[in-house]
């Protein structure tokens, strides 16, 4: 199953400079594990442990087909062939 994942500038060190890579998985969580196997280190930049469970990092946004996954089931968001995943760091500060 091929899903295109768009990688932001700051994480392209993990993808050899590639702006987009392919990955597979039937949920976002599986997709991130698959990304990690080909681009070691990237998972840690997307996910953190919160109250003993893994969750998306607060200041990383993930979108599946133009929707913020925080509103579609988070890491459990289901994926199918041809979906597009976009990773964008939050633009934020104090």
């Amino acid at each position, binding site marked *: 199953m091929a899903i295109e994942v768009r990688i932001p*500038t700051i994480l392209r060190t993990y993808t050899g400079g590639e702006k987009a890579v392919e990955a597979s998985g039937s949920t976002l969580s599986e997709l991130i594990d698959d990304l990690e196997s080909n681009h070691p280190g990237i998972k840690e930049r997307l996910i953190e442990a919160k109250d003993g469970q893994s969750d998306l990092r607060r200041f990383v946004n993930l979108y599946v087909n133009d929707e913020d996954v925080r509103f579609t089931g988070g890491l459990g968001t289901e994926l199918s062939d041809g979906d597009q995943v976009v990773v964008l760091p*939050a633009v934020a500060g*104090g």
Partner: protein
Amino acid sequence: MLTISSAVRDAIVAHAKRDHPDEACGVVAGPEGSDRAERFVEMINAAGSPTFYEFDSMELFRLYKEMDERDEEPVVIYHSHTATEAYPSRTDIGLASEPGAHYVLVSTREHGNSEGPVEFRSYRIIDGEVTEEEVTVTEES
């Protein structure tokens, strides 16, 4: 060094004054690799706070999609401080994730919503390192 037109600088300052005492934020996009701050894009501060800013996540998504379609990048990422100097806070440094961008800070602490000069400064923030840079304002728009 950041080179910016007076029109774009004035637009950033006007946005900061208008949103004071909350922080204002936005981007100036330009052709990829050009370092030209051309297209001024005001963003909503989803945090609506005098001490924090965050681009709304869907607005952020649309902005990056649009920049991608136009072969642009964020040349400037700006925000205001409303009670402190125009210098990146610890949070600003920790969350900075565009190593190619000029981070512009404006402080409205002196005059708030009123007329009057504001501090307008620019920085590179790379891997937690802040480097202030000169700002050159040009008259072309």
